[in-house]
């Protein structure tokens, strides 16, 4: 069974004549790290809002077709039930941190789900270890730096043990080094816990080497979904209005001149490996 399944799904926000999502068909399996790529306004955030039922349950509008998450129809299943399957981390962690201490913040979601004390402690230890925030537990979330807050937000979602973790531009407010740290951490969490992560991210240089698959969106439609190598070696990726990674741009130009017989590398180490081989 597919973990996520969109079937001819279309949606427009109330008051808008244009469809934000147009005839979306999408199947996503377990244990994948997926990049959602597309220019601003292409429908990425709307697509992510469908995954925990915010669309169409919370945002008023009109829809056609269906979305199923782990077999549950997102129209018939409550947002609170869907949130045990799908966790979302937003661009600005301040919007989702509410408790007086980091420890309470992380416990908050579990308390609402009625999880036993022993189980809570176990899950808390695990996600605190993964996100490396043990030293912050007694602090207030608002005292923390942007990167620390984002890690707390991720930890507070991880303890709910979602099968799917969604991140909508999670590093937008962070400096480059912290952004790299968060993205590398996400990759580790994904491979350790075998969950599916879907991320929309403008820092393509940093995220491209980490992902398994890419979904490309344009004008509310999905214009491509495949494993990374197939996507970055196809024409549609080049034509997408995104910040193409440096290595991609360089090697795509070489490929167009027929100076590259191999696939386009996704990172500096891959590029160097290729150039070293033909030396």
């Amino acid at each position, binding site marked *: 069974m597919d973990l996520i399944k969109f079937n001819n799904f279309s949606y427009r926000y109330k008051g808008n004549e244009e469809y934000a999502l147009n005839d979306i068909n999408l199947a996503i399996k377990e244990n994948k790290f997926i990049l959602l790529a597309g*220019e*601003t*306004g292409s429908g990425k955030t709307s697509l992510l809002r469908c995954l925990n039922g915010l669309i169409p349950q919370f945002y008023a509008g009109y829809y056609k077709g269906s979305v199923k998450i782990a077999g549950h129809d997102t129209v018939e299943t409550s947002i609170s039930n869907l949130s045990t399957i799908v966790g979302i981390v937003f*661009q600005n962690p301040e919007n989702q941190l509410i408790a007086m201490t980091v420890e309470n913040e992380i416990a908050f979601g579990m308390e609402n789900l009625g999880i036993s004390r022993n189980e809570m402690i176990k899950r808390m230890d695990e996600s605190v270890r993964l996100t490396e925030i043990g030293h912050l537990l007694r602090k207030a979330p608002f005292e923390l*730096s*942007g*990167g620390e807050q984002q890690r707390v937000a991720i930890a507070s979602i991880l303890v709910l043990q979602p099968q799917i973790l969604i991140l909508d*531009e999670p590093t*937008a*407010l*962070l*400096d*480059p*080094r*912290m952004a*790299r740290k968060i993205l590398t951490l996400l990759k580790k969490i994904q491979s350790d816990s075998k969950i599916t992560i879907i991320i929309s991210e*403008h820092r393509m*240089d940093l995220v491209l080497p980490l992902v398994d698959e890419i979904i490309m969106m344009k004008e509310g439609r999905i214009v491509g979904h495949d494993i990374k190598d197939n996507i970055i070696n196809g024409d549609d990726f080049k034509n997408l*209005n*995104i*910040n*193409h*990674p*440096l*290595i991609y*741009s*360089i090697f795509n*130009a*070489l490929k167009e*001149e*027929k*100076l590259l017989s191999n696939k386009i590398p996704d990172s*500096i*180490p891959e*590029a*160097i490996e290729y*150039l*070293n081989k*033909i*030396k």
Partner: protein
Amino acid sequence: MVIEIIDILPKVSATNVEYTYSNSTLALKDVNLSIMKGELVAIMGKNGAGKTTLIRTFNGLIKPSKGNVLIDGKNTSSQTIAELSKKVGIIFQNPMHQLFSNTIEEEIKFSLKNLDLSEEEIQTRTDNILKNFNLEKYRKRSPLSLSGGETKKLAIATIFCRNPDILVFDEPTLGQDAREIVFFTNLIKEEMDKGKTIVIVTHNIEFAMQHVPRTILMADGGIIADGPTRSVLNKEFLADKTSLILPQITQFNRALQEIGIQCPPNINSRNEMIMFLKKHLKSMGIKTKEEA
């Protein structure tokens, strides 16, 4: 010949500036800088380094606890924010913080209101700026209905219509896609041609490398480097102190050298690197499609 004194005075200067927040955090310490008319300068550094605090001293939102900030040679401590905001326009990181009118047209008009302009002049300036920014079609819509990129554009438009001499941007390329970054880059070029002085706070190393000649690096409230962007950003010890990552092009260049491919160290752009690798691959006997 009469020399215009205003042109040889720095547009912005700071001497021994210190600022302590009410919770006794020392946000700026001993900051000294001077920015001349027509300069384009980037301020970089990690979150919490004092970048945003520093630019807030430029339009008087923050008055230094010690030292002086001078705009056109005049101390900010003797001017009101309203006076300073005619000379210094700051476009903040989160555009929603500066938008509050019911329609996009009203938002622009509000920004023009305290400039002593006639109703006609306000209308003309509003029409022009909406046209230049491709926002005409949204004129009657609420700022809240715009996408992230368009909201940022509107925030820039509300400052540009006032035509300040000094423009300060806080993270202008954040969350922007390729097309929006090109729009912004062109905008900067046009303003530079008009002789504006521009300061950009950014984490975007590639952007600074490509478009900004001078970079000021900040760490722990102080300035730790100030010079040509390419030499400032290519220094590893500075990158370490400021949580920046060396530009991809520099990382790639160094990696090439490590495997014995002699890439000239002054290669700083995608196109230069493509040209170099073409030459290198051809020297390895790989043929281009024309030759094949």
